[in-house]
């Protein structure tokens, strides 16, 4: 009897991590206001639609991410959250 597999079962670790994180930046954008209330004036790191670390300095944030998600550090989305968001006009 053929065993049922999920569509992601054939993917290697790198591809699977990429699929999981593909929409993280879009999720961050959609949830900006809610997250800015919880993490004001901080950078947050998001992986698989979850906040995995926060810090006011992005270099320190990435050190936390390296410790917590060593295999996925390069795929982690980040954003600076503020309740006084400036509109960037170019």
């Amino acid at each position: 009897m053929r065993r049922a597999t999920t569509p992601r079962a054939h993917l290697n670790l790198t591809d699977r991590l990429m699929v999981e994180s593909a929409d993280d930046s879009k999720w961050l954008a959609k949830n900006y206001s809610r997250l800015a209330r919880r993490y004001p004036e901080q950078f947050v790191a998001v992986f698989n639609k979850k906040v995995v670390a926060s810090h006011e300095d992005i270099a320190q944030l990435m050190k936390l991410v390296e410790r917590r998600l060593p295999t996925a550090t390069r795929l982690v989305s980040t954003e600076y959250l503020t309740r006084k968001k400036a509109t960037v006009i170019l």
Partner: protein
Amino acid sequence: MRIKGYFNADGSPFVDVIVYRRRAGLARRISFLIDTGTPRTVISERDADKLEVGPTEMERMDAHMLGIGGFTQIFKLTDLTFSFITECGEHQREVGEVLVNKHDHIPEKYKNQIPSLLGRDVMGQYALVLDGRKDIVLLSDETMTEDDVFEENFN
């Protein structure tokens, strides 16, 4: 091959790139604002910090560039590879020279909000589709002729 982007909270189009620093052997995901008005791709200060670029690793450019907050100090990085996330996996492109923009007179809380910009030097290698009605931000290497575009939209 299609590279999907997204609109951020204020409706600006962005695309994510995994930026590899070849000499440092380090990669980080950077969100780029798709800016058709910028000839050169620019990495902002906060994203240069995310990429752990030290001041000695950049070459100062003797050029005047007018950006947010007036004239800015410009540096360049020459060892970057951009990797776009596509439906077929990663699509890599070596980029010749990427600028890093440094602002001395902008408070940190504003500097942290300045995005990196995907300029026409990289974007021009692809077809760009932006459709706010259908929530579509797309870069594609598919060949499009003028006839394709007009047939699609006007017939």
